[in-house]
């Protein structure tokens, strides 16, 4: 750990057990409602649940394997080029995901393809590689990547369920029961403002039930 590393106190805290790392990634340091990372894709891909699921799978894969690779190489990685190396590693895994989605889900790729490519620049990947994988052994780093990916995914899936239901009247493309008789399209839920409102609501609810994350007296400041 050097002065060059940009980390939060929570991120620097050494993991004791994989279960603790998992809990931190999903709840205590959730990338969306705690660290406010990866918001761009949260807003962009959450109007359809299927596209969101693909995006989440891609991000879990990329975050976990980037963390693992960075951790494996951390003792050999020159500090002055570490950011370049981390981007290279993330780009490699993201391109693999992009190619796989293009081959296996061509219709979905036409919609989310640009956002999958942008996972490379997703703050979660770089954030976890810098804050965690550079200071921790491979297994905890892998778990941390999975945990942060899952934490991101759970929030995205909740938002996507809400937006698709109100915006399209469907869930995973299947129409709601008797949709034509009672459902009316909420156009705003399809548009970016709908994502902002839903995200804000999700963060509010999540913080209400998991604590607001505010520092208590006596706790160390970042």
């Amino acid at each position: 750990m050097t002065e060059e590393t940009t980390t939060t106190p929570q991120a620097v805290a050494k993991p004791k057990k994989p279960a603790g790392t998992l809990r931190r990634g999903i709840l205590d340091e959730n990338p969306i409602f705690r660290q406010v990372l990866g918001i761009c894709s949260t807003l962009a891909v959450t109007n359809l649940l299927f596209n969101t699921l693909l995006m989440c799978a891609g991000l879990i894969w990329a975050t976990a394997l980037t963390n693992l690779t960075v951790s494996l190489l951390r003792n050999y990685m020159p500090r002055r080029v570490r950011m370049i190396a981390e981007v290279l590693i993330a780009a490699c895994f993201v391109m693999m995901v992009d190619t796989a989605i293009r081959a296996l889900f061509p219709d979905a790729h036409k919609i989310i393809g640009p956002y999958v490519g942008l996972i490379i620049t997703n703050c979660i990947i770089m954030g976890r590689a810098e804050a965690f994988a550079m200071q921790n052994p491979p297994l905890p780093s892998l778990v941390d990547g999975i945990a942060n990916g899952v934490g991101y995914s759970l929030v995205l899936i909740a938002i996507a369920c809400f937006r698709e239901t109100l915006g399209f009247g469907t869930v995973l493309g299947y129409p709601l029961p008797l949709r034509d008789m009672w459902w009316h399209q909420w156009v705003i839920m399809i548009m970016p403002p709908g994502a902002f409102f839903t995200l804000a609501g999700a963060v509010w609810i999540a913080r209400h039930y998991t604590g607001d994350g505010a520092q208590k007296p006596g706790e160390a400041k970042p």
Partner: protein
Amino acid sequence: MAGKTRDINSPGFALAFIGALAVILAAAVSVIQVTTVKVVAGNESLRRSAVLVELFDLAGGQAFDRKDAPAIVEKHTDQTMTIADPKTGRKFPLVTAYREPRRSDGGFNPESLIGYAFEFDGLGFWAPIRGMLAVSPKADSVIGIAFTDQKETPGLGGRIEEKWFREKFAGLSIFVEPKAPKLINISLQEPPSGTHMVNRHVDAISGATQTCMALDRLLNENLESFQRAFGNRAAPQPQAEKHD
């Protein structure tokens, strides 16, 4: 340990490290790309074939499996003809579709000609829009339209892909008429009755005004170019006629 740190942070090691990492990662990505290239090309071909079957109703109104589309297209279409716009030089590879399947000698019955299809493209509201337009044998009316690539707003502009909107294009007049200011008119406002634009009008999608304006512009640009090319074609010689 101090010596090791110094070595790792030397410029030479940093360059070698990044170079080696880039080569290894690029190789890994290349392997994935090469192994999936046939699948990706197959997907594109399937999609294009399915679009043609749907545009010309080559399955005879029956539901069809997308996997069967290439075989149906092979039986019912000739894709050897290309026409060129004399003004811009743009080339239009034509898909010529026939109701009756290809004969044993490889040709088609010209009496069963359904029409032609060509690919169009242009800038939509957010990103390029690409698709195929099928026109009648005299290129004076639209048979159908399909979109193969668009990234308009889902639920708004993205609805141009939906069947109810595409069906509005079937039967539109697109012959060149000097008194008609446009070949196709996509607008929320209906043209005055009795004008040449009445049979060229498509109701725009509410909430997708910008996408519809972009579609109106790009379709007219493509159609004008196509009509020049079609009118300029040197006595079209579809493969079918060669075998008669």
